[in-house]
């Protein structure tokens, strides 16, 4: 479903991604781990089409099509969803209002009739249960005055309503206490399925005890330095990122000069 080839990208005038190769197939869940500043969030932003990140080389294919040539809203309508690490607040715009506009933008794009208020409400009611979302949050302004946990829950709730095909979760576990983590992870797990692929970006192994990945990749200094099965996450937790960086410092350095 997703193929990233030799992706290089700059943000704030600095090269952050230095040649990423990654393939994710439909139905798979991939975890991307790595220390702070390794380029995890930049990768998520490239996939979503953030304009502050400049792709300097490489390509990204989504269902065989050039993802990087698509505007952010087109990617969203084609089923790419980013759960933000820091969801923004939009004063005066109700959560429900934004979400209804989003759902109908997607439906219109697919050639499906737009939902009316009743149909939309029915959908929302059903999906709310997935993340034990508080109804009061729906009528509040987008993320305004939400706690950190409520914001993350809201992201996963939006994901559930929008029914995307490729989900990118950017540090969705950060700032969550253990109960919230369990609820959010439960929502994500419920959305796993043969039609959907997920990229779960996290700093800690903790989340991966709840969302068990098919593959784990370790990102360091803008490159994937090692990949493996779910047990790789446990080894990392045990030995720390220094272990990976120490192991790969040799071979990685010459590659940077290419």
């Amino acid at each position, binding site marked *: 479903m997703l193929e990233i080839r030799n992706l290089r990208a700059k943000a704030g005038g600095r090269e952050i991604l230095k040649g990423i190769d990654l393939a994710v197939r439909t139905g798979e869940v991939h975890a991307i781990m790595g220390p702070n500043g390794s380029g995890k969030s930049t990768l998520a932003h490239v996939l979503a089409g953030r304009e502050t990140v400049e792709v300097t080389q490489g390509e990204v294919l989504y269902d065989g099509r050039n993802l990087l040539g698509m505007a952010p809203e087109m990617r*969203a309508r084609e089923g790419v969803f980013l759960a933000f690490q820091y969801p923004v607040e*939009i*004063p005066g*715009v109700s959560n429900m209002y934004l979400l209804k506009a989003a759902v109908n933008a997607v439906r219109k794009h697919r050639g499906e009739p737009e939902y009316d208020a009743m149909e939309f409400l029915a959908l929302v009611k059903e999906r709310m249960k997935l993340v034990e979302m508080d109804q009061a949050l729906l009528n509040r302004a987008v993320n305004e005055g939400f706690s950190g946990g409520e914001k993350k829950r809201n992201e996963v709730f939006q994901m559930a309503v929008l029914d995307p095909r490729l989900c990118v979760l950017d540090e969705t576990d950060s700032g969550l206490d253990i109960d919230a983590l369990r609820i959010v992870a439960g929502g994500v797990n419920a959305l796993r399925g043969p039609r959907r692929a997920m990229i779960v970006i996290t700093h800690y192994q903790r989340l991966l005890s709840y969302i068990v990945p098919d593959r784990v990749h370790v990102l360091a200094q803008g490159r994937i330095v090692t990949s493996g099965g779910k047990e790789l996450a446990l080894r990392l937790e045990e030995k720390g990122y220094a272990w990976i960086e120490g192991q790969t410092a040799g071979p990685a350095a010459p590659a940077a000069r290419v």
Partner: protein
Amino acid sequence: MSESAKTLQDLTTQDYKYGFVTDIEADTIAKGLSDDVVRLISAKKGEPEFMLEWRLKAYRHWLTMREPTWANVTYPRIDYNDIIYYSAPKSAGEGPKSLDEVDPELRKTYEKLGIPLEEQKVLAGVAVDAVFDSVSVATTFKGKLGDLGIIFCSFSEAVREHPDLVRRYLGSVVPYSDNFFATLNSAVFSDGSFVYVPKGVRCPMELSTYFRINAADTGQFERTLIVADEGAYVSYLEGCTAPKRDRNQLHAAVVELVALGDATIKYSTVQNWYPGDKNGKGGIYNFVTKRGACRGANSKISWTQVETGSAITWKYPSCILQGDNSVGEFYSVALANNYQQADTGTKMIHIGRNTKSTIISKGISAGHGQNTYRGLVKILKGAANARNYSQCDSLLMSDTCGAHTFPYVEVKNSTARLEHEASTSKIGEDQIFYCRQRGLSAEDAVGMIVNGFCKEVFRELPMEFAVEAQKLLGVSLEGSVG
């Protein structure tokens, strides 16, 4: 420039779509102002003697006045002798007796503006009084309102048919000597709307006036007077557009509201005068005096305005809270895009006891626009327990625009309680990106964010108008964040 910035740019530099000119024969007098011109206007309208005297008094006073310069706006000197003070569509003549008599060209114009004068409007519950250049062309539903004793007609007609009411209230809130532009208006005002709602009557529909400036080099000086007698209620809507012209046109209107005991007047404006082109050429100078008096106890006046047009806006809808427990409200959205300048706000004068006022002002600046909030809250000695809450928020959409706030407070009674909140924010690239990531186009994202910013004001507008205002804001912003 990034793509979302570009979309914002496109979005806020869009063309003015009401800029067409109606080709219609007009009865226009020569440019310039003098005693004779004032007499001519009065004669053309067949006014009684008291009206002419009032006009002449105003004109003579105006000659002694100087144009004010304190507003935070700049414009070249206006030559008041280079303006036409009266222009009327010729076919209007004596004024149409029914809709069928209205010039078809004129009706087409209103249809283009989305204002059908047809009786179907009954369904929408809107009675429309349309002012084209200087005369009122048709007033719908007069009969239906008449059954309730409500008078809703053109100002000229009111002067002829209800001279006592006009005489009693005209100038009682905005005296002829009030200020330079109001005084000019008092001398040369051509037409406008008049509303009287009798004791205890709740007006069953929204009353609406639509103003349009068509003729070139013409000033529009309309005068509106609304009186709500004891216990009456009325909601009044006003909308405005003008054709695109290279020369600036002057619009100096006066609106007076009088609310007697227990009466409520709600006055909503969606102002979309031609703002000038992208380089600031042309456009309407909107120098307007709007004031309401809460004369009786428990009366209430609420102003809601959405100001998207005009090259320059100079306007302070105000409330004089005389009656005990009276309430004044001011809800405003003002947009300054391209080279528009807006200096707008309100005055709340607390005289009676337990009087309350609320001010919510939302200023949006885009392009090179300059937006100024100017407001006065004055608590007089006798106004025990007066309360005011003011909130002024500014939203900036480019690096070249400006937002300014001048709140004035004068308190002469120590039991008063005043609160003032203010904020300035810039529309965030991250907010736009967030919406786009959910599938919305950049235009829709900007529209949604701006509407969210204005929500507290829009919810004060009558339903139909609120939708209109949201659309208008979207159109007016097309092309603006950089």
